[in-house]
């Protein structure tokens, strides 16, 4: 018979198995039916000392107490084999399982102290739409007009007065389409390089606007009077090596663009 009941406080113990395990361990006993019976009285004392605030928890303790009492009475009647209702796991087995679990719990409790939180991202990632869209976002269509004005001014000085040629916008649509297809990009100056007349420049400009409108191309300008760069929107097509593009393909592609 052991001396005063160890100070078993409820906030230290999670349940009846916990108390039982502690009682057995304090008497340096192995978990056996006999050990269980040896600590029955202490367990019952513990139950008597419980504050009866938590009904279900008290019930759990009483249930274990009843199992212990039953076991003890069976032992006195020399029928230890009937310790428990055979449909249930025996208290001994349950306690063994709990002991193993407690060892894990020691690790888990220490771990809770040591570990820290992995944080998730706080907000949806900025969508790539808002990503650096090179320069072009800084320009409004108006900027194109001023750029064109600059080109025209430059041209005006040395444009010889020659006979007018008829130019069709289709010519430039084809030309831009072809250049984009082959190179992926072209400069406005390159586009109008062989051009002589003011009308042609205007028509070429209209063709560029048409590409913009149909979203087949984007434009970029690195400075106020810098050349206007016309870029294909279709990266794949721009990547086709020059010699692999048959004339027919070009025509088809251009038709598609238009």
């Amino acid at each position, binding site marked *: 018979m052991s001396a005063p009941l160890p100070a078993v406080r409820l906030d230290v113990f999670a349940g009846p198995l916990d108390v039982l395990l502690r009682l057995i361990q304090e008497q340096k006993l192995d978990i056996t039916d006999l050990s269980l019976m040896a600590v029955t009285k202490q367990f019952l004392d513990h139950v008597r000392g419980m504050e009866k605030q938590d009904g279900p928890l008290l019930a759990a303790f009483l249930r274990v107490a009843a199992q212990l009492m039953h076991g003890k009475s069976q032992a006195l009647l020399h029928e230890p084999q009937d310790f428990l209702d055979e449909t249930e796991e025996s208290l001994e087995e349950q306690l063994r399982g709990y002991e193993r679990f407690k060892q894990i719990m020691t690790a888990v409790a220490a771990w809770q102290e040591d570990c820290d939180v992995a944080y998730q*991202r706080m907000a949806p990632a900025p969508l790539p*739409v808002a990503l650096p869209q090179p320069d072009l976002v800084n320009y409004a269509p108006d900027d194109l007009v001023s750029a064109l004005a600059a080109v025209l001014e430059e041209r005006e000085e040395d444009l010889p007065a020659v006979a007018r040629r008829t130019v069709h916008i289709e010519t430039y649509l084809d030309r831009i389409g072809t250049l984009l297809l082959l190179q992926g990009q072209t400069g406005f100056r390159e586009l109008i390089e062989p051009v002589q007349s003011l009308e042609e420049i205007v028509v070429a400009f209209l063709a560029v606007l048409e590409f913009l409108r149909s979203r087949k191309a984007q434009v970029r300008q690195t400075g106020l009077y810098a050349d206007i760069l016309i870029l294909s929107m279709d990266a794949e097509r721009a990547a086709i090596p020059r010699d692999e593009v048959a004339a027919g393909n070009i025509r088809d592609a251009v038709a598609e663009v238009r």
Partner: protein
Amino acid sequence: MPLPLTALLEGLLFVSERPLTIQELAQITREPARSVAAALEELKAAWLGKGILLQEQAGAYLLVSHPEVAPYVRTLLGVSRKERLSRAALETLAVIAYYQPATRADIERVRGVNSDHTLAVLLNRELVAAGERRLTPGRPIEYRTTFEFLKYFGLASLEGLPERERFLAELAGSSQEESDGPAGEKTA
């Protein structure tokens, strides 16, 4: 073994919802600004050719997904958008709706559980939006419901939120209920 400064910055930039300046990062990590700047350059190089990009905007740094991932991201978001709101998301939404403006800490206090994930879902679906920073320590962001929220619930205005008074009382109650004492085991 502590993580190197680059890893700390990586983690901070990953979690952050806004661009962070070198000064802020230096303050948080308690490292000189010079070291932070150097580490950021290192990170920038390390992230090259990866799916995430370290973007610099006006002296502040932000991690974004690579532009080439954009089409895939749109597919992903399209899929996510169609999903029904989870119970947790609905709860978080309710807290914001009734308490607004609410900070992340407010939400966590009321719900008693970290709500970052659900908040991200709601932000993503534009049911709530980030607003001003509150003038309290940490300068937390305040969240509010959006017009999208009103549409989602068919409300004409926030005045239309049902049983505001009662709901507030219940929310306050439930946040206490959860504080599981040290004794722990209280059975239902």
